């Protein structure tokens, strides 16, 4: 597992830094009470993930992650958070008491299960990774796949994006009427 070589050591160091950044920013996202800070933490998360992708020979996906996710989606998030303003009336947490306990339990269970599976069962399968050539993960590689083996995914994804765009326009359209009374919710 710990194959010590020069290139390897460098990779290990980068990996450790990126992994901890990822985990830390992930915890930060769910912890901050100010959504603005959470969004910024998410951007950090996305960046560290891009690094991890690069380590996995997924160059195009890493680039797309930074361009699309961090560059477009998070900017949109920040726009909306800024637009909504400092209306953080909602408490950090609350609701039925069993909700919190149940949440921690469920999330913890998921984590434990994943770790257990990785640790116990799948070690044999996961021990050996394939050797890939230089073209693995390059844009050309992805492009070829999109247009040959996974054409359907490509097309459907485009439709989904179209639908989302339409939905966004509809949801965002200004109503002609004056803002109504807040409907009572309880």
């Amino acid at each position: 597992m710990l194959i010590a070589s020069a290139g390897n050591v460098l990779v290990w160091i980068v990996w450790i830094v990126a992994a901890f950044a990822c985990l830390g920013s992930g915890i930060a996202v769910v912890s901050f009470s100010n959504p603005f800070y959470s969004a910024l933490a998410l951007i950090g998360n996305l960046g560290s993930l891009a690094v991890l992708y690069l380590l996995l020979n997924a160059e195009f996906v890493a680039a797309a992650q930074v361009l699309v996710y961090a560059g477009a989606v998070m900017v949109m998030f920040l726009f909306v958070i800024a637009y909504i303003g400092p209306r953080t009336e909602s408490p950090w947490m609350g609701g039925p008491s069993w909700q919190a306990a149940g949440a921690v339990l469920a999330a913890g269970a998921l984590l434990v299960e994943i770790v257990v599976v990785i640790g116990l069962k799948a070690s044999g399968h996961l021990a050996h990774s394939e050797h890939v050539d230089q073209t693995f993960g390059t844009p050309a590689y992805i492009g070829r796949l999109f247009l040959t083996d996974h054409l359907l995914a490509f097309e459907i994804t485009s439709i989904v994006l179209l639908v989302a765009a339409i939905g966004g326009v509809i949801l965002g359209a200004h109503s002609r009427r004056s803002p109504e009374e807040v409907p009572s919710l309880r």
Partner: protein
Amino acid sequence: MTALLGPEISWYLAVSGFLFATGALGVLLRRNPLIVLLSLEIMLNGGNLALIGFSRNLGDGGGQIFALAVMAVAASEVVVGLGLVVALNRKRVTLDVDRLNTLRG
């Protein structure tokens, strides 16, 4: 042809699992819808990391394609979700997930 340098795939998967659990915790505990959406993004990214990891492990590009599709879907979902939040805000509705509970029995 190069071998995988650095940690084995299982480490990446552990990080991915942690991210997923963290995002789940955020979705389950926070009451601000924006934070919930952000936590959802965390979960999706965790899944993406697992996909990319396996793609490298098996030498199959399909995992990366899948990850790109997930990214596109996540973007779409954020668009709609944020549209909803904006609309709620325009109607002066309290931005609290627990207050949006008219679908009750």
